[in-house]
C-alpha cells in the first residue's frame, strides 16, 4: 500500500467520522441520557437534577436517568463522570462545593478544572445568616458590632470546606471578627443548635432557614447574595449593609467529561437554557428563593474558573487546607 493511498483513506475516514459526529449532534439525544448526582437522593442537588431531568426528557422524548453516586464528598460520582466517554450521554450536576472542594483538598482523583467540559449553569440561590432567636442584634450593622465584640462566640457549618464554612470565614475576614467555627454533620443539626442557643448563627440555605424564620425560631440577619431575594424581600443583603461586593451563593452547573464535541455541548446548552426559561422551572427555583442563571458554555467555564480562583484564595487566607 503506497503512501498517497493511505492518506486518502485516512481523509475519507476523517470525513465520514466528521459527518457521523454532526449527524449525531443533530439527532442528539438518540438514546437515554444519564444525569449523575454525586450525592444521595433527597438533597438539593438531587432535587434540582430531578426537576431538570424531568423537563429535559419531556423536551427530548428520551428518558433522562438520574444516577445517584454518592460518597467521598462527591469525589466518587465526579471521578466516575470524568472517566466516561465524552459523548454527551453522561453528564453530571455540580454545585459551588465542587469548586470549594478543589480549594481545600489535594487528594482528588481527578483534576476538577481540566477533566470536565462545562456545559451550562442552572441557577443560584443565596444563603441567609440565621442567628439564635434571642440575640439582641437585629440589623446587620448591630450584628457586625456584636460578633466583633467577643472572642468567645461560635458559628455552625457543615464540615471543613463546606459552603457554610467558606461563607463564615469570608464573613470573619470581611467584618474583622474572630468567631469560632463548629462543624456539624448537616445543615439541619447546625440549625437546631442555633435554635437552641448553643451557637450564635449558621449561614445556611433559605430552604432550610425560611420556615424557621417565619415561626420566629431563627432571627434572619442578612442574605449573602448581591441583591435581595423575592422569596424574602425584607431581609437585607450584606452587600448593601457595608460589606461591598460580599457574595457567597449556592449554584448548580451541568458538566460532562472532558472532550465533548462542541456541537453536542451547544445542543445540550440550548436545551437546558430552554428549560431554565420555562415558567415551570422558574417557579420551581423560586419556591426556595432561587433564580435561573442561563449562560453559554464559555460563560459557564469562565464562571467556574473564577470560582476556583476565589475559593483557593479564601481557603489560603483562612488556613482551611486539609493537612
Amino acid at each position, binding site marked *: 500500500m503506497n503512501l498517497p493511498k493511505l492518506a486518502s483513506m485516512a481523509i475519507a475516514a476523517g470525513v465520514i467520522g466528521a459527518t457521523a459526529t454532526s449527524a449525531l449532534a443533530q439527532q442528539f439525544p438518540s438514546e437515554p441520557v444519564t444525569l449523575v448526582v454525586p450525592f444521595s437522593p433527597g438533597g438539593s442537588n438531587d432535587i434540582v437534577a430531578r426537576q431538570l431531568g424531568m423537563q429535559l426528557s419531556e423536551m427530548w422524548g428520551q428518558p433522562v436517568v438520574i444516577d445517584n453516586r454518592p460518597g467521598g464528598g462527591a*469525589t466518587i460520582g465526579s*471521578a466516575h463522570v470524568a472517566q466516561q466517554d465524552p459523548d454527551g450521554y453522561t453528564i453530571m450536576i455540580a454545585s459551588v462545593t465542587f469548586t470549594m472542594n478543589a480549594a481545600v483538598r489535594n487528594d482528588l482523583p481527578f483534576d476538577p478544572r481540566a477533566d470536565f467540559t462545562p456545559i451550562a449553569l442552572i441557577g443560584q440561590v443565596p444563603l441567609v445568616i440565621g442567628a439564635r432567636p434571642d440575640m439582641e442584634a437585629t440589623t446587620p450593622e448591630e450584628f457586625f458590632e456584636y460578633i466583633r465584640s467577643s472572642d468567645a462566640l461560635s458559628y455552625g457549618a457543615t*464540615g471543613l470546606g463546606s459552603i457554610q464554612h467558606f461563607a463564615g470565614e469570608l464573613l470573619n475576614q470581611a467584618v474583622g471578627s474572630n468567631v469560632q467555627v463548629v462543624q456539624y454533620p448537616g445543615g*439541619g443539626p447546625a440549625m*437546631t443548635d442555633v435554635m437552641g442557643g*448553643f451557637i450564635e448563627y449558621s449561614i445556611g440555605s433559605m430552604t432550610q432557614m425560611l*420556615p424557621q424564620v417565619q415561626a420566629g425560631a431563627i432571627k434572619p440577619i442578612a442574605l449573602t447574595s448581591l441583591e435581595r431575594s423575592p422569596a424574602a424581600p425584607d431581609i437585607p443583603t450584606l452587600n448593601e449593609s457595608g460589606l461591598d461586593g460580599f457574595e457567597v451563593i449556592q449554584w448548580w452547573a451541568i458538566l460532562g467529561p472532558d472532550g465533548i464535541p462542541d456541537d453536542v455541548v451547544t445542543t445540550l446548552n440550548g436545551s437546558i437554557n430552554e428549560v431554565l426559561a420555562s415558567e415551570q422551572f422558574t417557579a420551581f427555583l423560586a419556591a426556595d428563593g432561587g433564580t435561573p442563571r442561563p449562560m453559554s458554555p464559555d460563560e459557564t467555564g469562565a464562571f467556574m474558573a473564577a470560582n476556583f480562583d476565589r475559593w483557593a484564595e479564601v481557603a489560603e487566607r483562612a488556613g482551611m487546607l486539609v493537612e
Partner: protein
Amino acid sequence: MDLWSNIAAGFQIAVSLENLAYCFLGVFLGTFFGALPGIGSLAAVTMLLPLTFYLDPTTALVMLAGVYYGAEYGGSTSSILLNLPGTPSNAVTCLDGYPMTQQGRSGVALFATTIASFWGGTFGIILLYTLAPVIAQWALAFGPAEYFAIMVFGLVAAATVTQDAPAKGMAMVVVGMMLGTIGADLTTGIARYDFGYFELHDGVSFIALAMGLFGVSEIILSISQNVDKPFIQAVTFRSMIPTRDEVRRSPMPMLRGAGIGAFFGALPGTGPSIATFIGYAIEKRLSRHPEQFGKGAIEGIMSPESANNAAVQAAFIPTMTLGIPGSATMAVMMGALLIHGIQPGPQLMTQNPEIFWGLAASFWIGNLLLLILNIPLIGVWVRLLQIPYGILYPAVICFICIGVYTVRSSPFDVGMVLFFGLLGYVLRLLRFELAPLLIGFILGPMVEENFKRAMLIYRGDFWAMLERPISGTLLVMTALLLLWSVWVMIRNRRERRAHAHDIGQADD
C-alpha cells in the same frame, strides 16, 4: 375539642380509598422487605422513593412511611427464625429471639414481637398526636454537651449487653468505636484510616457492618457446622400462646421499651438502633434473672421491639415539626416532601394540616393493618425454615448484597459486607459477642463529634459540661452506674470465692 376535630379530619383523609390502598401497599411491601434479611428500611424506602413522585404528597408519604415502619415490624421475623436481622435495629432481637426458635417456640416469639411492635408504634403515635410541638421544643434543649452525656451513658449501658465475659465485651465496644473513626473527620477534613479508598471517606457503611457481622457470619457458621433443622414446628394459634409466666413478665419491658424508643426517636440523630440496644441493656439490668438473657428471655425481645417501633414513629416528630430529619431514612422521606414542593418545618401543621393529621392517622391504621397482616402470616414465615438451606442461604446472601448496594449505590460496600461477614465468623468462633461492637460503632463517633463540638463551644472548659443541668445530671448518673457495676463485680467475685472456699474447692 380542637385536637379531636383534627384527629377526625386526619382519619377522614387517611381512610380515603386511595390513601388506604397505598397505606396497605406500603406496609405490605415494608413487611416483605423487612423480613428479607439484608434489605432494611433505608434500602426499601430508597428503592420505592421514585415510585411516589407521581402521587399526591400526602399519599406519597403515607406509602413511604408505611414502608418504613412496616420494614421495622417485619425485620424481627428473620432475627427470630434465622438469627439474621432483617434490619440493623433488629439485631438485638436475635439475642433472645433465636434461642426461642431453637427451643421450638418461634410462634410465641413472633406473636410477642408483633404485640410489642404494635404497642410501641401506638405509643409513638399517641405522642405524635398529643405532644409533638412540646417534644420538639424539648429536643432543642439538647446541645452538644447533652448529646455527649447521653452517648457516654449509652456506651456504659451497652457494656452490660455482654453475657459472661465483661472484658471481651468491652474489647468489642472499643473495636466498634475504632471502626467508627474511619472516614473524613468533620472538623479537620482529614480522612482517617481510609487506606486511600475514597469509598471509606464517608466512613464504613453501617448497613454493611451490621449485615456482615450478623447476617453473613451466621450463614458461614451454619454452613461450616452443617446444621440440620431441628426447629421446625407446626404453627397453630395454640403454639403462639406464651406461658402464664411470660405474660406476667411482658408488660413492663414493653412499656419501658416504648418510653426509651420514643425518647431516642424524638432526639434527632439518634434513632431506633440505639433505642433497641439501650432497651435491652436496661431490661437486663432490672431483671431478677439476668442469667436467662441470651437464652430466650421474653423481656429480651419485648423491650427492643417495642422500643424500635416507638422510635420509628417518634422519629416523625422532629421531621414534621422542626423540619430536621433524625436519620438517613427520615432524610429520604423529607426529600419526598421537598420534591412535591412542601417544606416540613414549624409551619407544616398550620400550612398543610391535611398532611400532618392525615399522615398521623394513616400511621395508626397502618399499625393496625400490620397487626392483622402479621398474626396470620406467622405460620407462613415459620414455614420459611423448611426451605433447604442450600436454596435459602444463597438467596439470603443475594438479598443482603442488594440491600447493602442500594443504600449508597456502592459496589465497594458489597465487598465490605463480605469482609465483615468473615470477621464476624472469626470473632464468633473466638466467642466474642458482636452486639457491643455494633453499639460501639454507632455511639463512638457521636461521642467524639459531640465532645469536639462541646469543647469548641465552651473553649476547652470541661467543667462547663458538668455545670449544665441535663448533661451534668447524666454524667453523674453514668459515673454512679459505673461505680455500681464495679461494686457488683467485686461483690460477686468475693461471694463466689467465699462460696468456693466453703465447699472446699478454692483453687487459688
